[in-house]
């Protein structure tokens, strides 16, 4: 019997129907049913064909993409190179910030041409070996009869038109998104006749909805609820996310707010000293974070991605805490009695964020560093961090690849090159910058990955951040779903589910 619709409870609150509005999982996860990308990433983040069947570099500054034939938009019109060009132009030239989250993906593109309707040639300003990867984030829209569609139009009048496996039915902001099967989809026939996403932001409510069978899939299940859910007959899928949560230091300023000697007097910035940073990393019990706070649904971190993903280093393994060594390092750095600091962080942004602050404080207390955890709502946290009110803080970031994170988080801040956007601690390491730039110039492949791994090893030796953990995405699903394939980017889609009958 044909399975009825699939019902998914998601924490992702779709903000807009404009697929180019903001580069947030909230939008991209749901819109990926309707819109497609030229290139996909598989579960190990390796690239695979999407609307493009193949791609190759024609030269250092030219890429050629062969497009898939016989693909139709939901209104029946054929998909051609023209639509890709429209998409790129719309993102690069038309959309203005704030609706410009994707701009960085196309900023290196000089021009796009279509030698034939199923081929595009992209000319870049410099070497952009990751262009195909960038294209794995861009949703292709259909070129309208004239001009460019604005975000307002997409939200209000024009139904979204894509080539994806599901077509748009209705949307009510903050409530639900309804989709139906695209029977003319070019790929494998979509499993469900229709799909309803219900936005349920409260985790317990998602758990409850899954428990009662009101939904078939619920994403972002809190780890602590896993046991209970399993007891009530739900099944669980999980995967380490392509992201990292870490502690970051301000290593630039001479004195820092909230950092004092144990006696309470102000002291010079201790985090300029790599010994202190290393001591704090050694004096940290990641096991508690991972096994207790994340209830096992997390991986202790020693670098920016979970070991094993492309560009990671096998040599960097998370260490057990060593309080004695940490104390020794502190003493060597001139802080035998430790010091006091305020550890800032957002509350409720990442799984285990506020709890981690306290667990970290517990660990550090054992080496004499008294940390005062200070959690704040995310927006307040950001404003204060930007204003320099913090000395040490908890943060998180994600990206499609290791180099993107290295590029923004650890590379020296440089407006011109666009590096170090998240390097709020103003950490600078020229050797690393050079090594990273070299690796980034290499075409995608094992050589590039090796270069990135080496750069990572180099920078982590200096401990500019303390990697904490890579949390896992957890999805629960009910009996009507046969299995659920997790993806490290953390999207929740109907395409990842297989019906029970199929299994």
């Amino acid at each position, binding site marked *: 019997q044909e399975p009825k619709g699939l019902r998914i409870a998601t924490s992702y609150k779709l*903000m*807009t129907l*404009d697929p180019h*509005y*903001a*580069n*947030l999982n909230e939008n991209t996860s749901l819109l990926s049913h309707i819109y497609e990308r030229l290139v996909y990433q598989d579960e190990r983040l390796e690239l695979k064909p999407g609307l493009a069947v193949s791609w190759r570099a024609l030269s250092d500054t030219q890429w050629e993409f062969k497009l898939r034939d016989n693909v139709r938009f939901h209104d029946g019109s054929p998909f051609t190179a023209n639509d890709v060009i429209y998409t790129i132009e719309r993102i690069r030239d038309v959309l*203005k*910030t*704030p*609706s*410009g*989250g994707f*701009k*960085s993906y196309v900023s290196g593109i000089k021009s796009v041409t279509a030698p034939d309707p199923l081929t595009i040639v992209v000319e870049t300003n410099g070497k952009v070996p990751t262009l195909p990867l960038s294209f794995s984030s861009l949703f292709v829209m259909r070129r309208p009869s004239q001009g460019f569609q604005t*975000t*307002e139009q997409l*939200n*209000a009048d024009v139904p979204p038109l894509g080539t994806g496996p599901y077509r748009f039915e209705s949307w*009510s*902001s*903050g*409530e639900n998104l309804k989709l139906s099967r695209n029977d003319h989809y070019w790929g494998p026939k979509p499993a469900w006749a229709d799909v309803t996403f*219900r*936005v*349920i*932001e*409260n985790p*317990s*409510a998602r758990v*409850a*909805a899954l*428990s*009662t069978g*009101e939904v078939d899939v619920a994403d972002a299940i809190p780890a602590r609820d896993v046991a209970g859910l399993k007891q*009530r007959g739900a099944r669980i899928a999980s995967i380490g996310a392509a992201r990292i949560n870490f502690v970051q230091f301000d290593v630039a300023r001479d004195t820092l707010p909230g950092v004092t000697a144990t006696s309470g007097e102000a002291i010079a910035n201790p985090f300029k000293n790599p010994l202190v940073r290393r001591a704090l990393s050694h004096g940290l019990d990641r096991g508690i974070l991972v096994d207790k706070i994340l209830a096992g649904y997390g991986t202790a971190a020693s670098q920016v991605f979970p070991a094993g993903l492309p560009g990671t280093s096998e040599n960097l393994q998370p260490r057990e805490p060593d309080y004695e060594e940490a104390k020794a390092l502190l003493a060597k750095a001139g802080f035998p009695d430790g010091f006091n600091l305020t550890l800032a962080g957002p509350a409720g942004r990442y799984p285990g964020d506020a709890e981690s602050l306290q667990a970290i404080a517990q660990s550090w207390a054992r080496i004499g560093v008294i940390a005062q955890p200070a959690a704040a*709502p*995310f*927006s*307040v946290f*950001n*404003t*204060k961090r*930007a204003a320099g009110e913090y000395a040490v803080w908890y943060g*998180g*970031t*994600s*990206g499609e690849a290791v180099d*993107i994170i290295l590029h*923004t988080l650890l590379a020296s801040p440089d*407006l011109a090159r*666009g590096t170090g*956007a*998240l390097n709020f601690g103003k950490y600078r390491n020229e050797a690393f910058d050079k090594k990273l730039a070299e690796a980034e110039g290499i075409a995608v492949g094992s050589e590039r990955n090796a270069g990135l791994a080496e750069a990572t090893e180099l920078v982590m030796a200096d401990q500019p951040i303390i990697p904490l953990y890579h949390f896992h995405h957890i999805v629960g699903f009910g009996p009507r779903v046969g299995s659920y394939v997790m993806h490290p980017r953390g999207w929740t889609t109907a395409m990842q589910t297989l019906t029970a009958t199929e299994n």
Partner: protein
Amino acid sequence: MMALVTVALGRLSQAFLLLLAMSLIGFIGIHSVGNPVFNVVNIETATPEDIRLATIALGLDQPIWRQYLVFIGNVVAGNFGTSYIYHQPAFTLMISKLPATLELACVAMLVAAPLGTALGLIAGRRPGTLFDRAVLKASVSALSIPSFWLAMMLILVGAILTGWFPSGGRGATAAFAGQEWSLITRSGAWHLALPALTLAIPNIALIARLSRSGTIEVENLDFTRFCRAKGLSPRRILLRHTLPNISMPIVTIIGLQFGAMLAFAVVVESIFSWPGVGKLLIDSIQLLDRPVVMATLTFIAVAFVVLNALVDLFHAVLDPRVRLSSQR
């Protein structure tokens, strides 16, 4: 009648001042809390240049007073601006959440007000009886349970264990007067039950407590004794004499609580994924989505002004000694 018009006009002009004051507080408040731009761009990937451009695009680079003047100008022209986050007109966004909130609050209050008053009246008439003690204990308990606990317990019992009710969401809706309503479909009404109950229970308790203590006080007064002396049935005394005399604080509380349900039923709305105004407001505050915050705050202020004016009107109608314009 003239007096009524004068009073209404007076109220209206006061309301405008109030709205002005509130917009100022909201505006400066949001401004002081943080910079919305960090929520607009993806902070995990955005470059400083992105942030700079977004700041300019939102007009956040202007001095706060100029931003405020621009805002006021737009509001006068009927435009609250576009949501930073959702990129929809803020006012439309707020209005789209209204039906859900309205029907939830109305149902909850329609259950709570009569039930609470009745319980309190009956209990207060004979203080110390078994029924009275039961009402007192039950209402004290109901008021002592944190609302999220109550919500979760109702879900656990009403949805997960028994499966009688859905655990959340609005269910099917149907269009009426250009908006989508749950109440008029079977499934929608079914979905409404638990959240409405969660909102109603503490209010039943609160109203019962108020009317109980009022009844105890009033039933001791000479005129209720005289009513008994003149042979009125206890029921009539309770309904026609005690009830009006205790109704002022009760109606006041009903007004306040109803307003609070419209505006601040966040816990219930989020646990039952009931997409209402309260949740929109809190989310917007946390995301510093100023246009939506301002639009929602304006609606709430208007709602409270209207509700409180209605309560005052009720008071003036009920108690001939009180004048609407309260001049003494």
